């Protein structure tokens, strides 16, 4: 008798539990790339919002109090990690008054944990090297393989928070992964003829992209990460580009174009404003369009300048 009652009680608890768990999962991400992938995985079972915009430098986001209001209500916070947001996210989390999303709590997800991270500094590092990220280059989402890993982590986290929707999230993850697989094949095929094309980038935003799609980054407009261009470095870079016949300069949308344009005119090359994030330009509304846009931009420019030859 007692056991039956216990079972009945437990069932009631379980049911009420699941009823309250039906509320939409409130997800806040730091960047639009993480938000786009989360949307793919979570479908209509979550409301998803990004703090930073895709055309903004993700290292330097202002910790506005309006973000605190968003974080206060969040069930899950997804961060890029690798100290990308170190200048602005910690005070926001601290003031969020939300125990669910404190680092280490269940609702905090560092999306970099399973991703392939490049440029992890070896040996002694100092700030003389510029604004180096001691945990490796945080621009890892620019490789679709890492996109899949981020998606898996997000799906697992959402499933953990909403166990009833596990099957839904996992099914959407499988669907996203297979669509991304197909798209990746398409992208790789499109850029295959230009494999090994040498380029220069402004900041070290594209190592994962370059590795996946076969670009050869021979230098940077910044002399060191986070340090603005200096005349001597610019001169050295121009000479090196001339020597190696490099025509393309990839610049993130949030950097000044003056120096890159000067370099381009000196070497007879071209400046590409290449968005590293979803939302970097209006047309890039999701993670797929990010690669569509960037790869198309590259191929057009390579054809125009003959940089691939």
């Amino acid at each position, binding site marked *: 008798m007692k056991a039956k009652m216990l079972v009945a009680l437990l069932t009631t608890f379980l049911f009420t539990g699941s009823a309250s768990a039906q509320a939409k999962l409130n997800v806040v991400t730091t960047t639009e790339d993480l938000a786009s992938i989360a949307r793919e995985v979570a479908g209509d079972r979550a409301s998803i919002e990004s703090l930073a*915009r895709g*055309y*903004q*430098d993700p290292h*330097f*986001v*202002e*910790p*506005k*109090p*309006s973000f*605190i*209001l968003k974080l*206060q209500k969040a069930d899950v916070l997804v961060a890029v990690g690798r*100290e990308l947001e*170190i*200048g*602005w996210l*910690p*005070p926001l*989390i*601290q*003031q*969020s*008054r*939300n*125990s669910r999303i*404190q*680092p*280490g*709590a269940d609702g905090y997800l560092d999306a970099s*944990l*399973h*991703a*392939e*991270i490049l440029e992890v500094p070896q040996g002694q590092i100092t*700030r003389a090297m*510029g*604004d180096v990220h001691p945990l490796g280059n945080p621009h890892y989402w620019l490789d679709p*393989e890492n996109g899949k*890993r981020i998606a898996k982590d997000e799906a697992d986290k959402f499933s953990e928070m909403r166990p009833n929707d596990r099957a839904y999230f996992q099914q959407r993850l499988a669907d996203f992964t297979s669509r991304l697989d197909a798209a990746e094949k398409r992208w790789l095929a499109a850029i295959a003829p230009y494999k090994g094309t040498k380029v220069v980038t402004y900041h070290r935003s594209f190592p994962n992209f370059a590795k996946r799609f076969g670009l050869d980054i021979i230098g940077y407009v910044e002399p060191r990460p*986070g*340090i*603005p261009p200096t005349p001597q470095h610019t001169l050295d870079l121009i000479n090196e580009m001339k020597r190696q016949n490099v025509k393309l300069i990839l610049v993130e*949308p*949030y*950097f*000044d174009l003056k120096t890159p344009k000067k370099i381009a005119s000196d070497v007879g090359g071209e400046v590409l404003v290449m968005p590293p994030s979803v939302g970097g330009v209006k047309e890039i509304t999701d993670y797929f369009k990010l690669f569509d846009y960037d790869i198309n931009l590259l191929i057009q420019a390579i054809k125009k300048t003959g940089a691939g030859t």
Partner: protein
Amino acid sequence: MRALRFVCASTVAAGLLVVGPSPASAQDAQALRREIDQLRRDFETLKQQYGDRLSALEAKLAVAGPAEAQAAAPPGAPAQPTAPVPPGAEGAGGPSGALPVYGGAVAASKVFNPDIAVIGDFLGAVGKNPLHPDPFGPGTEPRALQMHESEAAFQAVVDPYARADFFISFGEEGVGLEEGFITFTSLPGGLLTKVGKMRAAFGKVNTLHNHVLPWADRPLVTNNLVGGEDGIDDAGISVARLIPNPWMFLEATGQIFRGDAGPAEQPLFHASERGDVSYVGHLRAYQDITEDSNVDFGFSYARGRTPLAADAANAERLVTNLYGIDATLRWRPLQRSIYHSFVGRTEWIWSRRDQLTGLQRGNGMYLSGDYQFARRWFAGARYDRSNHADDASLLDTGGSFVLTYWPSEFSQVRGQYRRTNYALGPSANELLFQFQFSIGAHGAHPF
């Protein structure tokens, strides 16, 4: 692994079968050979099968990514380092075998050390100022060059419920705890609670450490009415709560302090009894205007005991009330956020200071603007005016132009031209300069 072991076992078994029976006749030998051949074929197919399975597994692992592969491998718990027992000790009743080394194991526990940063603030001044020889404080020493402050910051999470922040300031005259408090990040009811010594939430400038100010000095009104550089920085408890509403960010803060504030030379509040606590209340309203711009308003109130001269210890206990309004307008275009920005701020403060000589009703304000015109360059200006707290008939006014250069995020050079018209002495024209540099953990950017 299991597959490999199976392969080995079958190899041994096959070997035993071969060696085991001795041939009795040619027929037997033939049968045996057939059997061996069969076994050999079986073994080859087995080998093939397991080889295939192994390579499939390897491929799977490679696809899963290096991080996952790392995770799959056992973390290899670091062995406790050991040292041999010193010769002779074993026989003399000492311990036998290897001794554990305790010091070596703590390398891993260093991950729990707090984030440490040190910020140096070097100040200098050129020009005459007979009334205030120390250009940056209430002192009487003419300190033309000073290592004004070296601030050491230690910050870490305490446990799942709290974090702690310590800011220790090494000044020209000694060491002081600028702030040291615990913040409970996850109290019920959305309360953000701090306990310890902290800068009070009175207006804007009072909450800011020297190194995040947009000037080399502090405004006149801060020095005259709110206790100067030290300001209201006291031991106490602070509780802040967000007020839910559909329109804006609204935060109310209530603080209670021991009741001592301001520099020793001219204190703002002073507690001579346990009950002489001071109170600070602050209401902050913030609203985004556009993606690029926002406004921030604050209303502040502070109340504490007016310090009395020693000979007046038995006199009636008097109170100082402070009221403040602050407003900040910020503009920073998102897509060019590292190159251009503007911050306009103003603070108005009213002081009602009850003294033995009667109530003094002074007020003061500053208005300042800072424009970032290149990635590393900022230009700013400030207008100052303020009564004296203890004599509201005295009015000081002043103005400054500021130029700041950032070699990097971690250092800054600043020059400031300051003119001050004092009520009690000749005007002063000064050129202030500042070198500021920080090492250690990457702190958050101030907002």
